[in-house]
Structures are given as structure tokens and as C-alpha cells.
């Protein structure tokens, strides 16, 4: 393959403590540590491994968002991507808008494979990869736990983790694949590679340059903390348990 594209997203670090804003309009992200979405990291790692197996000539990392998202591109470059693309926008990102931008890039740069994380840990939407495939009319394999490509045959064989177990698909390339947790364990960016990444090129462009806008189609009504965990209750018998589950918790 000539090229694999990987989309990476800047999100609140999975370990950082977050607080809901007082007006319940969203999360307070001022001063909060931001990182690459863990599933995007896994997707990127898979792409770099494909390059190491000489199944692709180059790996291109793409991110959409604020100027600071460049940090996540540099991380991608430190992990082994060859170059980066940064679509600069301060707009709030929604899956459809992101998918449309990525589709425009896919049409422009013609990758054989477009890898994404299955979902971002801020929105948890699990939409973007699927929408991207739909917009491009490409085959898709989501929740991938194993990816094998056959560039000669022009196919990818992907094992998916589904509710019933594991499903294996063969897709004709170009295709969209989204990563699940067990696809791989991402490498650490090494210090020399972190420094080398500073010299790798990043192309910056606006959504307009791709003929796109970033409209707001969704309105967030309210963001609340989950209810505080209440203490457990001891019951005297199974009969009492069933009674409480039926009459109080109303789950039976």
C-alpha cells in the first residue's frame, strides 16, 4: 500500500480529574491535561506496525481541531508516523463534521486504509468511522481486534469483537477500520523519536480549503455528574432480595 491514514483526536487525558462546569453546559477543560485518545493510539500503533512489516510506504496522522492539537500530531510522529495533517478549527467537533472532513482528505490523498479509534473517550459516540465509510462508500470493519492486509490481492482481513464473539471479515481496499482495545499495545514514544518528530512535516489547512465547513448540528442541553454512589443494603434472604428488586429498584 502506498499510504495509510490515521485519524487521532485530542481528548482529556483518561487519568485526569474533570469537573462539570457550574452552569452544566459542559466539562471544565481549563488547565486539564490533554492526550491522544487511547483508541486513536491503538489505531496509530497498528498503522506503524504495518509500515514496519513493509505493507505500507507511509503512515500519515491527521487531526482536526484547535492549534494545541498539534501536540497530539507530534506524539503520532514520535510513535512512527511519517507526516501529519492538521485541519485547524476552533469549532466544537461533532462526528458528522469530522467524518466529512476526513472523507475530503481521503478523496484528496487516496489512502488504501483509513484507521481510526472505535470511539473517543470524551464523546463516546462511536460514529465517526462508520460515517466516514458511508460517506466514501468504502467497506468498513469496526471494533477490530486483528488486522491483516494483502496488498497484492488488495484486501484486508479483519477480526471484529462483537457481542456474540469474534467475527472475521474480508474487505476490498480501500477500507475504513476502527480499532478496539485488544488490537495491540501501543509503543512508548522514545526520547530520540520525540526529538526527531519535531523535524517531521505537518501540513496545516482550514476546513474551507477542503471545501467544508464545521456546522453545529447538535445542541448539548445539559451535562451532569453521575449520581453519587449510595451505600449497599444488606438483605436477610433471597425472597427479600427479589422483593426489593421488583418493588423498589423496579428492575425485575
Amino acid at each position, binding site marked *: 500500500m502506498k499510504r495509510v491514514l490515521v485519524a487521532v483526536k485530542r481528548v482529556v487525558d483518561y487519568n485526569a480529574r474533570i469537573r462539570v462546569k457550574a452552569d452544566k453546559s459542559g466539562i471544565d477543560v481549563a488547565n486539564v491535561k490533554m492526550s491522544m485518545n487511547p483508541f486513536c493510539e491503538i489505531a496509530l500503533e497498528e498503522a506503524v506496525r504495518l509500515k514496519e512489516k513493509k505493507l505500507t510506504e507511509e503512515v500519515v496522522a491527521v487531526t482536526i481541531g484547535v492549534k494545541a492539537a498539534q501536540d497530539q500530531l*507530534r506524539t503520532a510522529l514520535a510513535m512512527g508516523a511519517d507526516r501529519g495533517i492538521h485541519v485547524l478549527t476552533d469549532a466544537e467537533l461533532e462526528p458528522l463534521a469530522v467524518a466529512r472532513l476526513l472523507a475530503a482528505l481521503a478523496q484528496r490523498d487516496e489512502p488504501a486504509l483509513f484507521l481510526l479509534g472505535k470511539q473517543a473517550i470524551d464523546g463516546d459516540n462511536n460514529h465517526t468511522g462508520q460515517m466516514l465509510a458511508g460517506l466514501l462508500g468504502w467497506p468498513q470493519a469496526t471494533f477490530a481486534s486483528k488486522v491483516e492486509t494483502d496488498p497484492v490481492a488488495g484486501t484486508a482481513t479483519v477480526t471484529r469483537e462483537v457481542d456474540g464473539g469474534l467475527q472475521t471479515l474480508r474487505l476490498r481496499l480501500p477500507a475504513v477500520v476502527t480499532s478496539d482495545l485488544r488490537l495491540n499495545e501501543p509503543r512508548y514514544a*522514545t526520547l530520540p523519536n520525540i526529538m526527531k518528530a519535531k523535524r517531521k512535516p505537518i501540513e496545516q489547512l482550514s476546513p474551507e480549503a477542503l471545501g467544508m465547513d464545521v456546522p453545529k448540528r447538535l445542541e448539548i442541553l445539559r451535562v451532569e455528574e453521575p449520581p453519587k454512589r449510595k451505600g449497599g443494603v444488606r438483605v436477610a434472604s433471597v425472597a427479600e432480595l427479589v422483593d426489593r428488586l421488583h418493588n423498589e429498584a423496579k428492575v425485575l
Partner: protein
Amino acid sequence: MRSFLLALRTSRRCYSAAHKAIKLAQQQDLEQDILAWESLLAPEETAARDAVRAWVDARFAPRITEAHRRGAFPRDLIPELAELGVFGASLQGYGCAGMSSVAYGLVMQELERGDSALRSLCSVQGSLVMHAIHAFGSPEQRERWLPALAQGKLIGCFALTESSAGSDPAAMAATARRDGDAYMLEGEKAWITNAPIADLAVVFAKVADEDGRVRAFVVERGPGLEVHSVEGKLSLRASPTGNILLAAARGALLPGSGGLKSALQCLTQAREGIAWGVTGAAMDCFEAALDYGAHRQVFGRPLASRQLFQERLATMAQSIVTSQLMSLHFGRLKDQGRLTPVQVSLHKRHNVAAARRVASDARAMLGANGIIDTNKVMRHLMNLESVYTYEGTDDVHALAVGRALTGISAFS
């Protein structure tokens, strides 16, 4: 999803069960909220810090209690450390990362957050051994040793101190005598970090043929070089420390070396890393104390609700923030080529004493639990006793600063 991910992902980026912190509802984060200094750091500096932190949490932290108990460094982790690029990270060329002083300092901080023994091994390898060869070695010597040292294929130690010459290195007795292409070295060196596992030693000795001028030599493991581990250490237990006996040991002269100042140049470099490093230990102790206060119940309420406990936390936080900002300022000066030895003395003395105090307070705040090695704080406290003494004792650095301030030397 985030809590799910935290629960599910037991691989590299999750803390071990002992590290899982219980967070109070409105708690502020020391680095994120109080220090709030991400904007002062370049992206590659935070990236370096985060990369090392992730590795230490996943690979080193689960091993340190056992290593500390047994008094043995987990040597199987050395290839991973080398792969990470920690050895000689501030040097240019030879496969080294070529990082800024601030990036390097943050790396040292994260290593020492794991354990001072880990940071000591890396300080010696990078700032002392590799720096000496890089600065004073011939091109052939640099090619021969630096890539192997960077890759962790060779481990080095820095042999300056002797049993009767610590704070006063000029009093050293080790000698070197010209013998054809090489030199024959005689003497003993004491308290040498890494010596028991080292493949080579950078040895400082007085050259008979040069009126006793001190010069640096590389002595490879072999006949004439004998190492004995220092037994009975209660501090830096996971760091291999040895005494070296040199008896007709063949050494290669590092031609650029000349006078004690060559050794001091390396030590100044290492001291900067140490000043950054100890704040990592302090931060680990602070977090342990904070976490303990959050879940320890005393008279019906969390210990963290008690006035004296909060006062101590506030003092610890102030101390850490002060140390961090001093490190950042001097790190930037160093990268501009403007850092002076007196500033390094002030920096090392301040940060080590500050960290030692934080560790001591944390030990007390954890009560009886504070004496158990799995609870980290006393291990850090024990280690910091060595760091207080090595690389220039607290007292010696005080005199160095005092001399600069007054113009009068109190040394002799």
C-alpha cells in the same frame, strides 16, 4: 467510558493497586491546578516527561519494593531504559536524544518519582560517564563507547571519590603512569554508583608524568580492576554501589581532560539532573500523603479534614512549586549557556533539602503505615539521605554559595 477504560486497561498505563488514589470531590491537582505550568513547557518537554512517567508507572514501579528489599537493581529493565532513550538524553549525536536541559530534567524527575536509585543509575550513565567521554574523548573513543552506552549494551561508572577524598577530591591518591599507548592506574575508589554492574569506569587519577595533574581515563573491566559491592546500605538500596581497587589497571586517557575541573564539569551536569530529580521523589511522597489523608478516618472524619494535616500539605505544596520553578529557571539558563556553578550549588542544595523535608513530613503523616516499604514514603526518605550527601554535600554547596556571596572562602 473513561471509568470503564480505567477499570479495564490493566496494561501499561494503569497504576498498580497500591497506587490507585482515592480522590476527594473538590480536590485540586498539584501539577494541574496549583503549579499550572504546562504552558511554560515546550511540547517535546511534556511529551518526554509523559513518556518516562508512563514507563516508570508500568514497568518500574511494580518492581521497586522487591528491588529495594533485596538490594538489587532490576537489570532486565536496562534494555527498556535504553530503548526509551534515557541514557545520555541531553547529548547530541551517537544515537542520543539531544534534549533540552528542561526536557532532560523532567525525565530525571520522572525517574526519581520511581526511585532515586533508578535516577542515580541514569545520572551516572548519562551525565557523568557519557558526558565525560563526549566532552573529553577522542573521536575514536566517542565512536567506540558512546553508542554502546546509549544503547545500554555497556554500563559505566564514574570513579572520582576515594575513601579519604570525598568533599575534597584534590586529596585523591590514585595515580596513573604512562606505559606505551596507555596508562597504568593504581589506587582505590569508593562509593561508586554502578560499579558492581559496570563494564567500564571513567577514573580520575593523578598523572605522575605531569606533576600530579588529575586526568580522566577509561578503564574497562578486566585484569587490574576489582570491584567489591558496598554492603549494609540503608539508602539507595536498589542502586548497585561498589568500591574499586586498581592494581596495574590499563586505562585509556581521555585526551580532552585536564585538571580536576574536568571532573567538576561532569558533576555540575549531573547536579542539575539531581536537582530536578529529587522533586519527583517529593511529588511521589506528597501524593502518597494526600491520598492517605483522603481515606484514613480519624475521630469520624478523613484525616485530610484536620487542620495540622492540611497545613503540612500546604507547606509541602509550596516547597514543590518553589523547587519546580527554580529548576525551570535554571534549566532555561543552562540552555542559553549562562548557568554558573554557584547557581547549580544553590539549586541542588535547595531542592534536595526541600525534598528531604517533604519526604520526612509525608512519613509522619502516614503514621505507622509510613514505615512500611510498600507505602513508598520512607523508601524515598532513606534514599534522599544519600542524595543530600552525594554530588556535593548540603554543607559544601552552602560554602560554595557563601564564598560567592561574600567573596571569602570558608573552605580552607
